[in-house]
């Protein structure tokens, strides 16, 4: 069973013991999603068969046999394919067969009438009940890169992405304050709502699932799970007025959710990038979105019309970060090509290369009058938003700087590294205050000073 | 409905649509080869049209409406002849003839005097879509001499060349009303072909259609009150008629395949058109609905 991640196993096992009817969404969808969809999904559809929604899974493929026929194992092509001895026909092709327990679930479900317990037309990923994530490790044995970072509203807390958790630290002394569990395996972005009450966490496990979790910032209570996809979610940003949330995912989509009373519902989906969307950001009036993608483009979308406004294709590498210029007519973007570029929304033409870094650069945090940028050259940077002039360099990282956040109240800057270390800087003079590993229980054998140069 | 899918059901549906119009639609040919530019002569007894006779020859044929027999208009023609026009009295004929590689000549034939006149322009462009004034005073045609394609006129001996339009974009398909006072035509200055009318001297222009796709080949009816034309406004090439002022647009054909090249029968009640059916092009006669599916200007 080691091949299956814990939460799936947990679901499957609990049902078998209780003898409840087999649930398509809880029991089968996870299997179809992880075992079948990469070949039989929207991207590939081998044998003209797809499983990415319930109806498609039921439908015929090239073999002209329905995927499933209620109460009829013989006319359920999938069941035949899962169980046949013919190596050429058996699915998953080129992999081990499903376990006998999994196959038994399919069998029982067909025998029980192949009912569907999800929302019609919804994708597999979204009908599987949100997973309850496993506990995070009590102590971290090895270091993990930290790419999600956000200050709490009053600057007294620093939220940091951990392994299946958000860890909350006192930025002043680097002490662990609390741990918020039940988070996807790795976090790629944390955003605090403008009123400071909500946390949005873009997270997931590479190749397995992605989601954006909405939490109560004060107590870590789970409010909603949004934007569930088959691979990780990479960014989540609240609109300036806090009523909407934009998410960026590896499925190339940008989703916008809006708060409807207590619930968060999908408002719009932008399907325009042909590869991962690494980052998304709002214009200051909340009417437009800018996005950065591994497809080497950045784009601007208009929320109301749902249209793409412009594509900027001036980068030669994956675009990692975007921020609107205060004039609302230009956009900054960062890329693996080491450039911070400024370009015009009007025609998608470059205004200028603002800076060429020594290595690839990540997301941009746009805060007040500044842009904060972290780079693989182990330096974090601050630029004036208006002129794009460099204001500060924050040096001292011992490894790639992956993420950066700014406490405008206390005028502090925090940045995190590939090595799991957080550095706190004084904003005014860029002096290092201190640094610590944001990894609970991680014991460093080596001296903390990592002198690099 | 998707015509191209290979299921019987679709053809069944298509059959229904065709059937719906069949009471008013009569096939004139059945050979299916690519046809174009039909025009009635001999008081409506004969239809002349162009056809892709070989893979390398477009030539004019004439169809006897009584017997439905067709024969080449010029037996010996071995060059492309396109866009034929006849004067109302049948004395003149004009068309464009391919004379060499990417070159064409525009000829006006006086059948009575057995004389040919050639319209000369600078440049190697090709003339398009001639139309005779009802009184045989001029032939109006489209030509691009430099820049935009304009409407021009010459007299019956190809002299007194005048440029009628001075507009942006491409102008094409002039057609006279029977009183000779008005010319309807298409122009693209508003991004795509729209139909306009103007006085025969080029003044008093009015725009008759307004949408984002093509409205082409306007032809004034024998009583001068209506215009038949082709439009893609419902997503397919179909034939419509409207009043001379652009009002009261009625859809004449409704097919997902192409219906095009409307030409009025002299009785003013019918149109000959080229219809593509099942990938074959044939001539049909359709009745002009006096009322029916009315579409708005857009």
């Amino acid at each position, binding site marked *: 069973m080691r091949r299956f991640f814990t939460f799936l196993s947990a679901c499957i096992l609990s049902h078998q013991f209780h003898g409840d009817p087999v649930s398509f969404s809880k029991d089968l969808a996870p299997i179809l999603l992880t075992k079948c969809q990469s070949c039989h999904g929207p991207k590939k559809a*081998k044998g003209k068969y797809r499983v990415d929604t319930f109806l498609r899974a039921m439908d015929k493929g*090239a073999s002209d046999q329905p995927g499933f026929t209620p109460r009829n194992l013989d006319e359920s092509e999938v069941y035949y394919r899962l169980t046949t001895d013919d190596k050429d026909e058996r699915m998953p092709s*080129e992999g081990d067969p499903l376990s006998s327990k999994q196959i038994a679930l399919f069998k029982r479900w067909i025998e029980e009438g192949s009912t569907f317990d999800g929302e019609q037309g919804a994708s597999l990923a979204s009908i599987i009940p949100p997973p309850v994530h496993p506990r995070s490790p009590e102590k971290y044995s090895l270091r993990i890169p930290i790419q999600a970072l956000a200050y709490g509203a009053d600057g007294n807390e620093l939220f940091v992405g951990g392994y299946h958790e958000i860890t909350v630290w006192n930025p002043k002394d680097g002490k662990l304050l609390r741990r918020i569990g039940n988070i996807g395996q790795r976090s790629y972005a944390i955003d605090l709502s403008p009123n400071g009450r909500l946390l949005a966490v873009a997270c997931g496990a590479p190749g397995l699932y992605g989601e954006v979790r909405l939490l109560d910032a004060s107590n870590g209570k789970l409010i909603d799970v949004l934007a569930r996809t088959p691979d990780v979610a990479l960014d989540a940003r609240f609109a300036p007025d806090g009523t909407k949330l934009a998410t960026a995912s590896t499925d190339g989509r940008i989703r916008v959710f809006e708060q409807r009373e207590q619930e968060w519902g999908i408002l719009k989906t932008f399907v*325009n990038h*042909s590869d991962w969307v690494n980052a998304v950001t709002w214009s200051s009036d909340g009417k437009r979105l800018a996005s950065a993608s591994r497809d080497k483009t950045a784009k601007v979308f208009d929320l109301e019309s749902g249209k*793409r406004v412009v*594509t900027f*294709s001036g980068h030669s590498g994956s675009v990692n970060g975007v921020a609107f210029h205060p004039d609302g007519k230009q956009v900054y973007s960062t890329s693996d090509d080491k450039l911070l570029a400024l370009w015009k929304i009007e025609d998608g033409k470059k205004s200028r290369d603002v800076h060429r870094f020594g290595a690839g650069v990540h997301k941009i945090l746009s805060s007040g009058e500044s842009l904060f940028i972290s780079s693989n050259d182990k330096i974090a940077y601050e630029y004036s938003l208006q002129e794009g002039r460099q204001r500060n360099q924050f040096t001292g990282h011992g490894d790639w700087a992956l993420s950066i956040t700014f406490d405008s109240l206390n005028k502090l800057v925090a940045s995190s590294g590939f090595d799991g270390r957080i550095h706190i800087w004084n904003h005014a003079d860029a002096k290092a205050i201190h640094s610590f590993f944001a990894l609970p229980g991680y014991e460093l054998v080596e001296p903390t000073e990592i002198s690099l140069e | 409905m*998707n015509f*191209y*899918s*290979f299921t*019987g059901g679709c*053809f069944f549906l298509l059959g229904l649509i065709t059937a719906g119009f069949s009471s008013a639609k009569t096939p004139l040919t059945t050979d299916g080869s*690519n046809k*174009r530019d039909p025009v009635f002569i001999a008081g409506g007894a004969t239809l002349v049209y162009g056809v*892709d006779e070989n*893979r*390398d020859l477009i030539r004019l044929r004439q169809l006897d409406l009584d017997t439905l027999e067709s024969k080449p208009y010029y037996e010996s023609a*071995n*060059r*492309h002849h396109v866009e034929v026009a006849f004067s109302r009295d049948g004395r003149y004929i004009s068309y464009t003839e*391919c*004379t*060499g*590689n*990417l*070159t*064409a000549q525009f000829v006006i034939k006086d059948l009575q005097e057995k004389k040919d006149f050639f319209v000369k322009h600078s*440049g*190697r*462009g*090709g003339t*398009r879509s001639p139309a005779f004034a009802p009184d045989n005073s001029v032939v109006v045609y489209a030509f*691009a001499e*430099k*820049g*935009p394609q304009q409407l021009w006129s010459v007299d019956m001996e190809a002299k007194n060349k005048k440029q009628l339009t001075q507009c*942006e*974009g*491409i102008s*094409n398909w002039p057609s006279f009303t029977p009183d000779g006072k008005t010319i309807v035509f298409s122009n*693209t200055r508003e*991004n*795509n*072909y729209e139909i306009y009318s103007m006085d025969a001297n080029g003044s008093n222009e009015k725009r008759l259609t307004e949408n984002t*796709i*093509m409205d*082409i080949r306007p032809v004034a009816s024998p009583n001068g009150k209506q215009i038949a034309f082709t439009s*893609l406004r419902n*997503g*397919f*090439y179909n034939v419509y008629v409207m009043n001379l002022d652009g009002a009261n647009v009625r859809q004449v054909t409704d097919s997902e395949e*192409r219906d*095009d090249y409307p030409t009025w029968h002299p009785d003013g009640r019918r149109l000959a058109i080229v219809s*593509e059916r*099942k*990938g*074959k*092009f044939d001539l049909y006669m359709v009745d002009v609905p006096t009322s029916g599916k009315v579409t708005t200007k857009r």
Partner: protein
Amino acid sequence: MLDFGNFKARDCENGVGRRSFLKTASALPFAFGAGYGGIDLEAARKLGDRAKAKSVILLWLWGGPSHIDTFDPKPEAPMEYRGPFGVIPTKTDGLQVTELLPQLAKRSHLYSVIRSMQTTNGGHPGAGTVGLTGFEENPTVHPNFGSIMSKHRGRSGALPPFFYLGQGIPRDLPRRIEGYGGGTLGKAYDPFLVSCSENGKVGIPTLDLLPGMTPNRIHNRRGLMAQLDDTSRKLDGDGVDGWNQAHHAAYGLLTDPKARDSFDLTTESQSTRDAYGQTSFGQSCLLARRLVETGVPYVQVNWSEYVETFTPNGDFGWDTHIYNFELLQDRHCPIFDRAFSALLDDMNSRGLLEDTLVIATGEFGRTPKISNRAAREHHKDCYFSVWAGAGIQPGRAIGESDKRGERPVTDPITPLMMGTTIAELSGIGARERAEMKVLDGGKVINELL
């Protein structure tokens, strides 16, 4: 040809020819011990499956179709550029086409369009050679993509591996394309020419019997040969077997009407034939489908033999220096829209699109600026290609041209890249290309995959 212990056409990477590997693997089901997880056997199968495209159909729009008036309209451009045609949306985000392609617009989920093609040559035969081989014809004429395919796949069965459907080898008035065939690989890899009329009747020049020849006489001759052969022991060996097959196939094609069934479109249902349209190009597309269905690796459908659109004895290529708008509207685009749509639908419904690559392109585009003749001239800096089928991610608009469609604003995509992508998808990897000395320096168009 020997199959075992012979490294001809070997995969540089794995030291074994693809075909011989497959043949071996299938001949020896128990060759790999169970104790080793069967992983190597799977690796072997994978190697053979590498070709996503079992066949390729290239719709060669000879003459240089206007990109502005088809797949890359510029409705915002000034009047003297944009042309007269309205613009309609497609199912592909970011892709709109002119109103001349309504059927293809509805099917854009089946294909992707590249709007940033660029070639190096502005004349027809020259650009044609570049378009079909990836290289200029001087100093050396490189092989046509189809010839590379036929060399790689070898000959199998009765039909040749590389077909040209159309009236003849593409040419303009003075001369034909140099890169129509085998090039450096030799004439043995030239295409096999078949023409198809608008009624679906095929003509095969090499099967037109010479004066004095009759099927009956051929029959007699071969009977006599067989009689003589029966008098002594026959030669054996792989080379002999291959030759006997070819000889038999030629005999069949020349004498037995049934053997021409692959070419005979009358066996297709009338509705299928109608769908493609009663045009030579339409019926050729249908024939192309039939050929790939029987396993022919490469079919090039030539829109016409001559580029010129309006010329005595020409057959209406896309070279619209004159009557560009009229001919595109009245003739070319409706024919193309219908035939290509029908081909996509037909291939798709038969499952052929899964392992057949279908491409439509010309040798260049046409000037965005409308000429003084109200037409468009040659334009090598920007044109389009349409890709569907095996291994292609459909529903994408790849590359962009500038506001007027004069040149790409994204990295230009070249014919060499097109050929390389065709080869790559057909299982002709970088090393095999290096060994055949073809497509040197070509890059795969990753955006398509």
